[in-house]
């Protein structure tokens, strides 16, 4: 058997870099990455079949359910290559598969010398995969193209081999064919990894430098930091230093994942493993940072460290006001494991006390919300997502606005909004539809290329705010789910943007304010006022609902006063019936919020704020 018994395999800390291969798998959600990883674990016998379970490496329920990887993983796989009968150590570095986590992906890629490009041969490459492929190519990684799900009846390996060959500049026959499900071709793939991917190169005598490519909070052990050693050596009991902050830590444990943590004496050049320092907060051990030896520090950081910068903001409010302290606790806990999550207290006249939270993107936002609800048992209302605007007011003062309520009143000189470069892959029959959608969303066409005869890559610049709204949802529904999207921020641009307020009986409802393009202000105002007219029950007085830009009303609806709410008859036997009915009605009445004099049911807020996101959530889950 080409598998090697663990105790006889090359040991961590003492492995010759020439025996090491570091690789990652680039794949779209659903294209079978986790299943392929499962087979690799089995074939290399690091997990025996008795302990095997599906999606072995996905740690969170959310990851398993939604088939996405949120955090990366690194597994040490001993392997004897059938080509030369030599022993090797393969480090498989799992990468997050979503555009929100592009930075994390880039750090995982930076820890590898090669990448397996895994594509479902019934579906072809998707936009996010393409983006990650380009990222890998920019990092000079060796790419091994692999067609998965070769066992499917709908498989079209020839067609998609052509596509891959064209993308990476190889021959179609260079594409390996595997089935993660049956294990077919997986041994060959492992041998090819050994053969094609270069081994790591570093200076064992130099001061230690290791790249942090992931950082995970564990409630028992504190923060577990995943690193790839570039130069030198890391050992237990070393004092280490984070180069971006200069902070010193005691190293309590070093080890490798195989696929459970196994402590070792240390990690040498090219090795991938974990460190435990007793730190309690992932923000002290950040992805992209360089770990060095405190007493013998390196002078030069590894390149590429960035602070995660939130792209999308939203207010999170507990449905029950009394849950506010619970929400704070849950956010504090989540932040231990999520350095990209930022939040600060916010109070809304309509929704009470909550937090303004910053996220890397919509998926990140969704995942955070879902984890808060699931892990802390909270029911939350989230306000419409907003991007980060730079607003210059009448006095020439520049403000960063992440919440419509911070938008200055009065004269505005300029508003700048974030712009992204979006890549859409789709069957060519949808070109017209996609261009129409992008045009509606203030997009500018950058270019278009055919990937194959009937598949096309379309590139646009778009305001991020347009994507955040319901772009993905629209794209999916207009292309019957065939289009895929990726985007990356490319800067800011000035836009004719205004804040639209929604007023109930002349009182502003802060939760419904939005910053939108002037051309769309009227449509937003109309849709909100109409929606609210349907959602808010009639009150004993007439309730005007208005949409306004500053002092100017742009849309108006009216909830007519309720005329009749009485049961005509009330005789002997009706009395207890009436009292019981009253008590029953009370039960349903609890969740009302007062906006001025207007009683607004909680559900109205939820429904009015879920502008198309609900359905995009559903689609995300399916995709």
């Amino acid at each position: 058997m080409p598998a090697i018994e663990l105790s006889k395999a090359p040991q961590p800390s003492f492995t010759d870099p020439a025996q090491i291969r570091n690789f990652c798998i680039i794949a779209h959600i659903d294209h079978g990455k986790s299943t392929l990883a499962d087979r690799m674990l089995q074939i290399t016998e690091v997990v025996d079949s008795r302990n095997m379970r599906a999606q072995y490496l996905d740690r969170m329920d959310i990851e398993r359910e939604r088939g996405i990887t949120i955090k990366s993983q690194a597994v040490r796989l001993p392997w004897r290559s059938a080509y030369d009968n030599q022993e090797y150590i393969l480090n498989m570095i799992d990468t997050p598969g979503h555009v929100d986590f592009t930075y994390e992906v880039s750090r995982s890629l930076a820890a590898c010398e090669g990448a397996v490009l895994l594509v479902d041969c019934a579906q072809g490459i998707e936009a996010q995969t393409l983006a990650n492929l380009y990222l890998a190519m920019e990092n000079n990684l060796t790419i091994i193209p692999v067609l998965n799900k070769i066992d499917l009846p709908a498989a079209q390996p020839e067609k998609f081999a052509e596509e891959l060959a064209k993308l990476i500049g190889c021959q179609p026959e260079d594409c390996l064919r595997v089935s993660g499900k049956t294990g077919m071709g997986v041994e060959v793939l492992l041998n090819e990894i050994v053969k094609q991917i270069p081994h790591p190169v570093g200076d064992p005598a130099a001061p230690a430098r290791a790249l942090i490519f992931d950082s995970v909070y564990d409630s028992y052990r504190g923060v577990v930091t995943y690193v790839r050693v570039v130069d030198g050596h890391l050992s237990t009991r070393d004092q280490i230093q984070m180069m971006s902050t200069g902070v010193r830590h005691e190293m309590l444990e070093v080890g490798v994942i195989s696929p459970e943590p196994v402590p070792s004496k240390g990690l040498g050049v090219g090795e991938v493993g974990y460190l435990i320092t007793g730190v309690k907060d992932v923000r002290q051990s950040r992805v992209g940072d360089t770990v060095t030896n405190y007493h013998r520090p390196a002078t030069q950081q590894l390149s590429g460290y960035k602070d995660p910068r939130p792209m999308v903001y939203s207010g999170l409010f507990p449905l029950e006001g009394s849950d506010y302290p619970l929400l704070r606790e849950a956010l504090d806990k989540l932040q231990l494991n999520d350095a990209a999550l930022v939040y600060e207290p916010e109070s809304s006249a309509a929704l009470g006390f909550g937090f303004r939270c910053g996220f890397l993107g919509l998926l990140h936002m969704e995942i955070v919300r879902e984890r808060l609800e699931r892990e802390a048992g909270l029911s939350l209302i989230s306000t419409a997502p907003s991007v980060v605007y730079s607003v210059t007011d009448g006095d020439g003062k520049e403000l960063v606005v992440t919440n419509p309520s911070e938008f200055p009143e009065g004269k505005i000189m300029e508003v700048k909004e974030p712009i992204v470069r979006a890549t859409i892959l789709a069957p060519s029959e949808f070109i017209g539809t996609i261009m129409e959608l992008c045009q509606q969303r203030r997009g500018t066409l950058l270019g278009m290329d055919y990937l194959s005869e009937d598949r096309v890559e379309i590139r646009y610049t778009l305001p991020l705010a347009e994507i955040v709204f319901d772009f993905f949802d629209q794209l999916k529904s207009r292309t019957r789910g065939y289009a895929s999207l990726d985007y990356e921020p490319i800067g800011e641009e000035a836009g004719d943007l205004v804040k639209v307020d929604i007023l109930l009986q002349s009182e502003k409802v802060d939760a419904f304010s939005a910053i939108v393009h002037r051309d769309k202000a009227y449509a937003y105002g109309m849709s909100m006022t109409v929606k609210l007219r349907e959602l808010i029950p009639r009150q004993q007085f007439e309730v005007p609902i208005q949409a306004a830009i500053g002092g100017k009303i742009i849309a108006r609806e009216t909830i007519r006063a309720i005329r009749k709410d009485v049961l005509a008859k009330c005789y002997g036997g009706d009395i207890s019936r009436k009292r019981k009915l009253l008590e029953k009605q009370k039960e349903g009445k609890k969740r009302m919020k007062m906006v001025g004099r207007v009683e607004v049911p909680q559900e109205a807020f939820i429904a009015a704020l879920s502008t198309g996101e609900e359905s995009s959530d559903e689609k995300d889950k399916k995709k």
Partner: protein
Amino acid sequence: MEARADHLAFYIHIPYCVKRCGYCDFNTYTPAELQIQSSLEVISNDYIDLLVQEITKSAEVSEAKFVPSIFFGGGTPTLMQPSDLGRVIAAIKSHYTLTDDCEITIEANPDTVSLAMLSQLLEVGFNRISFGMQSALPHVLAVLDRTHNPDNVEKAVLAARSAGFKEVSVDLIYGTPGESMEDWELTLDTALALPVTHISAYALIVEDGTKLAARVKRGEIVIPDDDETADKYILADNKFRSAGLDWYELSNWSKPGSECKHNLFYWYGENWWGAGPGAHSHINGRRWWNVKHPATYKEKILSTGDPTQDSEILSAIEREEERLLLNIRLPRGIQRASLNAEQLAKLLPFVESGHLSKELWEAGQVTLTQNGRLLADKIVRDALTESLL
């Protein structure tokens, strides 16, 4: 207001009808439903015996001496022989003292009365009669499934007057599917042209389990919207007032002094005894109700003498709730002084919106205006009882 402990009003339930109307969910039975072959006369005689037994029982339980009102409802009380109905009144008289102004009412179907019968009713003690008119329009009556000929209402009312009834009332229903505003106006004018001293007018309630509810569910007929029904209420109230009939409860209007006392006892929280299947009773904060089916009722009366199905003792909060939800329906309303600060604060917007009389509010009284009467339940829920629960 505390109930007068030595007074007890009687409600006598007659659970029989020749035919069940489509909107009716009352506890009443047709001979076909009861699967009996015997004539109504035989039923009548037997049934009255049971009522007499329950009345005898009441005298053992109640400490009351005086009876200020007896009300025969149904069902169709006029299906019983006047002499049989008289036996009930006599039974009450044998255990209690009728007050000098004791009101004795019978509900009547305009089709089933004759001058002779009306005279007999007066003879056995009745002094007030209430006819189920509902509408002057045959097409509206047809939707309600009422069988009477609208012309018979006038005949019946005139007959009652000439027989000697001083207090004559008609019941009306508005908001029936297919009833236009003009239809309703015609019904109102027809009723007001009659020599009546009292009118009850109810917005139609589609009760679950009725034939009407099934037809609405199937989409055969459409319930008019609440705004239109509200307009009909306003029209009725205006017309009644112009004709000298003032509201003394949300759905009841009368000439001065012709208010139905029996109704008022319910709303004032007085004590009353309901006799017959499914009848409800109330004495000093305890409510109970009898078994519903006539056969079960008979069996209970004959075996244990007690036909009670269940009872409840009202908590202080429940009594307060009832006080509020009943009194708000009356022109005298509720004393502001009897309410707490939270209730008053919640009522204030209704004063501002014109649903509570501002003038009376300032005089210390919580009283519904014409528009306010249409929102009585909302006011009870949102302002009066929220802080109690």
